[in-house]
């Protein structure tokens, strides 16, 4: 006997307890099966670009913190690199500054992956695993806090340098934390990687083919899980990435489990990068010696007329950036974070565009969960790692 059935329209989100991030899925369901999924974003739109266009070049930094707030320093760095490219001072940034930027980017990547993996496991019901990674993240954030005074909204980088040098005992702090983090990592790994329940939720769910992923503009761990070895740190090296040894983990199938494995290994690789750099930190200043770009020191501002004038002009009028345009790709935790800046000459950007990696990833949600079960939406959306601040800007 044929039962008369019709698809059920189900509204999931925008504030759903099992998704981290404000997003709404409009689902058409046949029982437990997803027939169609429409993704709606924009709930966290704050007018990032409009605000940037109204402020000076330096005032953009705090806004970039709030893009992917789990790895704020990476956004700071990406933006600073783009402005420096426009100014034509890329080669003049002090070595020490570049080394610190590299280390901070990798610490941010670790914190981002800890957050993503931990929170995802929480949403799959693995509360214990979540606690291990939240603790690891907390220790990582302690390091970041000791450097710039904030855990998330770091506002650490400046055009032509950094807001401050590393604190005393930084290397020792990192060396004290990393062994503990490694223990948390292996506990997390033991709890999950061969866990039958976990595997059932993750393996062969939310997959996407290599060809499709590229057509959608996938980058970062989700692209590498498909087996594509694309990482901006290797393809277009910036900072010190061409001077350190690290591997790019890639997956085979492009499913949620591979995305998890790629991120797990990237944590180890980030630690490897930091450990290579921390013992051979170059000395010297962290800021470029050019008062028209980077404010002179407080002592100079209070003691010398010229320095005070520069300080005043940089603050009121902004750094003067010659007319032009530049795009700088960097490898964020989620994929390619690229800043496209246009200057018409003067103290404010004419255009400050950021390419948000999870925007392209979220776009493919509908295709990745089509024909899957309702419960598969959770791990798939988790592994996409949508960050509202970055996706909606």
């Amino acid at each position, binding site marked *: 006997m044929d039962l008369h059935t019709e698809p059920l329209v189900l509204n999931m989100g925008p504030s759903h307890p099992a998704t981290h991030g404000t997003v709404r899925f409009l689902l058409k369901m046949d029982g437990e099966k997803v027939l169609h999924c429409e993704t709606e974003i*924009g709930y966290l739109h704050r007018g990032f670009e409009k605000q940037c266009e109204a402020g000076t070049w330096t005032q953009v930094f705090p806004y970039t913190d709030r893009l992917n707030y789990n790895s704020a320093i990476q956004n700071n760095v990406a933006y600073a690199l783009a402005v420096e490219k426009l100014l034509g001072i890329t080669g003049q940034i002090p070595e020490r500054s570049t080394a610190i930027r590299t280390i901070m980017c990798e610490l941010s990547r670790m914190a981002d992956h800890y957050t993503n993996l931990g929170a995802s496991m929480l949403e799959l019901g693995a509360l214990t695993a979540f606690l291990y990674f939240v603790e690891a993240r907390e220790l990582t954030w302690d390091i970041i806090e000791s450097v710039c005074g904030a855990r998330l909204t770091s506002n650490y980088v400046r055009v032509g340098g950094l807001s401050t040098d590393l604190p005393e005992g930084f290397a020792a702090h990192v060396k004290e934390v990393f062994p503990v983090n490694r223990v948390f990592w292996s506990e997390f790994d033991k709890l999950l990687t061969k866990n039958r329940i976990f595997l059932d939720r993750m393996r062969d769910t939310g997959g996407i083919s290599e060809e499709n992923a590229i057509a*959608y503009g996938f*980058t970062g761990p989700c692209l590498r899980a498909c087996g594509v070895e694309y990482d901006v740190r290797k393809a277009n090296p910036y900072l010190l990435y061409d001077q350190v040894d690290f591997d790019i983990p890639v997956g085979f199938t492009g499913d949620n489990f591979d995305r998890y494995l790629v991120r797990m290994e990237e944590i180890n690789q980030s630690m490897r990068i930091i450990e290579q750099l921390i013992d051979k930190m170059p000395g010297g200043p962290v800021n470029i010696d050019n008062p028209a770009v980077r404010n002179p020191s407080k002592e100079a501002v209070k003691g010398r007329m010229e320095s005070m004038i520069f300080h005043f002009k940089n603050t009121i009028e902004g750094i003067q950036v010659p007319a032009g*345009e530049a795009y700088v*790709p960097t490898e964020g935790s989620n994929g390619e974070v690229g800043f496209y800046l246009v200057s018409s000459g003067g103290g404010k950007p004419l255009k400050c565009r950021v*390419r948000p990696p999870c925007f*392209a990833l979220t776009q493919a949600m509908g295709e990745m969960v089509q024909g899957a079960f309702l419960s598969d939406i959770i791990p798939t959306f988790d592994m996409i790692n949508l960050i509202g601040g970055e996706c909606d800007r």
Partner: protein
Amino acid sequence: MAELREQVQRKFGDAVLTTHAEHGDQTVIIRKDAVLEVMRWMRDEPSMLFNFMMDLTAVDYKGIKPPVWRFEVVYHLYSLKHNHRIRVKVPVADDSPSIDSIVSIWKGADWFEREVWDMYGIAFKGHPNLKRILLYEEFEGHPLRKDYPIKKRQPLIGPDN
């Protein structure tokens, strides 16, 4: 080997308005009616193979460039095989701005084009589902246009408001 921008110019001649390599970024500026043809060639031509449409956005040059050039739609492409990048810019006039959609070439362009429509009001002809993405349907105007005041508020209180 000729630079990328020169190869594009050689192939398309008049459709390429100008090219530059400011700060080392290969850039070609092409005519609006040639977008589909140039983009498809760039994706498929063996010496180009731009399989990634990395970024798509627009810039409002109101008051800076002559009115015929008010908007520019900007594409950033990347080739995995050759590890090279190119920026393609297309001037779009002020008067009910529109341009051909490239969703048929890179399906990832879908949301990016919707965002440009949302923020700049540039219509993408042939787009399968051109509607606002970050803002709500009732929003009036396109906020990233230079003539949209930054302090303007449009509270959305409820469906009956």
